[in-house]
C-alpha cells in the first residue's frame, strides 16, 4: 500500500496550465454546492435565533451568543468526547499495532483467517453490537461510564487500524528486522525499535482515523449512556434536534465546534486523510 498521495495524472505541468482555469471555476462551483451545508452551519451559528425566522445569506450582523450558549451548555460534553476519543486512540494503538505487525510478518493459516474475520467485522452494523453490549455492560457497571465507551469504540476501531497498518508493515523488508535480531534483539525489541519508527506514517493515519470515528461516535453513546453525567457531544447535538429546538444558533455553534477536529485534520493532516480513505476500501 502506497501511503503517500500520488500527484494527479499529467503531473504539475498540466496542473498549472492557465488555459485550464475554466475547469478550476467549474471545480469551485461543484465544491461550493457540496460544501454549502457546511457554510450554512457556520453562517447560522453566527446569527441570533431571536427575531426573524429566516437567516441572512451572509452573517453581516455576526454574534457569538450561540457559541457562548453552546459552550456553557455543552462544555462538559466536549471534555467527555475528548477523553473518550483520546482514550480510544491510545488503547487502539496499543492493541492494534502489535497485531498488525504479527499478522504482516508471520504468515499462517490462522493469521489469514483472522484477517478475514477483521474484514467481516467492519461490516457488522454497530446497532447489532450495541444490542448485545447493553445487557453485558449493564452487569459490568459500564453503562454511563467513559471507560465503557472507550472499550466499545476501541473494539470498533481495531479492525480498520490493524488492516491499515498491516498493509504498510508488510512492505518493510524482512532483512531489516532480522538484522536487528542477529544483533541480539528479541522479537519485541525488534518490533519497538525498528518496526514502530519505520511505520510512523501508517500509525499516525490509524490514530487520526480512530480519533475521528471515536469523536463522531453516536450509536454507542446513544445506547450505552442514559444520564447527563456522561454525555458525549454527539448526544448533546442529538438532544437539541430531537427536542425540535428552534435555537438554531446554539445547535449550529455546537455542530461547528464538534466539526473542528475534522477541519483541523483536513488542513494539517491532508495526506494522511487521503491515504486512509483509500486504504479503507482497498485494504
Amino acid at each position: 500500500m502506497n501511503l503517500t498521495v500520488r500527484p494527479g495524472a499529467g503531473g504539475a505541468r498540466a496542473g498549472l496550465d492557465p488555459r485550464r482555469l475554466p475547469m478550476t471555476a467549474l471545480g469551485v462551483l461543484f465544491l461550493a454546492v457540496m460544501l454549502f451545508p457546511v457554510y450554512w452551519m457556520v453562517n447560522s451559528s453566527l446569527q441570533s435565533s431571536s427575531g426573524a425566522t429566516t437567516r441572512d445569506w451572509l452573517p453581516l450582523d455576526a454574534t457569538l451568543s450561540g457559541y457562548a450558549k453552546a459552550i456553557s451548555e455543552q462544555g462538559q460534553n466536549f471534555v467527555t468526547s475528548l477523553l473518550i476519543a483520546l482514550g480510544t486512540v491510545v488503547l487502539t494503538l496499543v492493541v492494534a499495532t502489535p497485531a498488525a505487525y504479527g499478522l504482516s510478518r508471520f504468515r499462517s493459516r490462522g493469521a489469514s483467517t483472522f484477517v478475514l474475520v477483521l474484514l467481516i467485522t467492519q461490516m457488522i452494523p454497530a446497532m447489532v453490537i450495541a444490542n448485545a453490549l447493553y445487557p453485558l455492560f449493564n452487569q459490568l457497571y459500564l453503562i454511563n461510564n467513559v471507560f465503557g465507551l472507550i472499550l466499545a469504540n476501541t473494539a470498533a476501531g481495531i479492525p480498520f487500524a490493524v488492516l491499515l497498518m498491516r498493509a504498510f508493515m508488510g512492505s518493510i523488508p524482512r532483512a531489516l528486522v532480522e538484522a536487528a535480531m542477529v544483533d541480539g534483539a528479541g522479537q519485541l525489541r525488534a518490533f519497538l525499535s525498528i518496526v514502530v519508527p519505520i511505520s510512523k506514517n501508517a500509525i499516525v493515519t490509524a490514530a487520526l482515523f480512530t480519533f475521528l470515528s471515536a469523536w463522531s461516535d453516536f450509536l454507542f453513546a446513544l445506547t450505552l449512556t442514559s444520564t447527563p453525567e456522561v454525555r458525549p457531544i454527539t448526544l448533546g447535538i442529538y438532544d437539541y434536534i430531537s427536542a425540535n429546538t428552534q435555537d438554531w444558533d446554539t445547535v449550529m455553534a455546537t455542530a461547528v465546534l464538534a466539526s473542528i477536529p475534522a477541519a483541523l485534520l483536513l488542513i494539517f493532516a491532508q495526506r494522511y486523510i487521503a491515504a486512509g480513505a483509500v486504504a479503507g476500501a482497498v485494504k
Partner: protein
Amino acid sequence: MTSAHLSLTVAAGERRTILWTRLLRRATPWLFSLPAVVFVAMFFGYPIVQNVVMSFQEYTTSTFYSGAAPWVGLANYATILSSYLFTTTLVNTALFTVGSITFQFVIGLALALFFKRAFPLSGFLRSMLLLPWLIPLIASSAVWKWLLDQESGALNQFLGLFGVPAVPWLVDPTLALAGVIGVNIWLGIPFNVAILYSGLQAVPKELYEAGSLDGATGWKAFRHITWPNLRPVVSVVIVLGVVYTLKVVDIILGLTGGGPANSTQTLATNAYNKSFVEFNFGEGAAISNVLIVVSLVFALVYLYLSRREPSE
C-alpha cells in the same frame, strides 16, 4: 552422580529449552495479535452469539432486575415478521440503500472523472471535498434538519425566490424518505470520489495514449479503457456502499427519528426502537439478526470480489 548422568540431565534440560524456545517462537505471532483477538472475540464474537441467544428469549427491562429471560422459541421472530412494520422497514431499507448508492456512485464517478483532468487547484479542491465525510454524522444531520426546515430552512428560502411554496421535506410521510436519501447521498459522495479517483489514477496512462492513436477519445475512451479497468474498484465501492448504508442509524434518527408515521424506519432504526425505546431486547435482537444476515450476504460478495481481483 556420574558425569554421564550429569551430561544426560544437561541434554534433557537443553532439549527442554529448545522445545520451549520453539514453542515460544511458534507462539510469538499470536502473542503480538493476542490482545486484538481477545477484543474481537469479546466485542464481535460475543455480541453475535448473544444476539442469537436473546432472540429466542423474552428479554425485557425486568430481565435486568430479576435475571430471568424465559425461552420463547421462535415467538420473537414470529412477532416481528408478522408485524405490519416489518414490510415497511424492509421496503424502506431497500429504497434507502438503492437510492443512496445509485446517486452517490454516479455523482461520485462524475466528480472523480472531472478531477482526474488536472487543472489549477484541482488537488486542493478535491481534498476539500472530503470535509462532509469527516464531520460527525450527527452534526451533518443537525445542519440538514435545519436546511430542510419547512418554515425557515435555507432550501425553502432559496426555492421561495422562484416562487415555490414551502415544501415539508421531512414532515410529510411521502417526502421524508426521499429527503433522508438525499442527505445520505450528499454524505456518501466524498467517499465515492476518493476511492474512484484513486482507481482512475491506477489505470495505466499508456492505454489512453495507445487508445487515442486508434481514435478512442472522450466517451469511447471511457467505455473501452476507463470502465473495464475501473470495474474491480467499482464493485468494491458499490458493495462497501451497500454495507455502510445498511448500518446507517445516525442520519435517520437525527433527521426524522424514523417518522413521520414510520415512513423512514429502516431495519437498523427499528432494531434500535425495539431494544432501546421499548426495551424489548428479544425482538430487537431478532431484527438485528435479520440485519446481520443481509449485511453478511453483501460482505461475502465483497470478499469474493476483492479476493478475485489483485488487491493493489
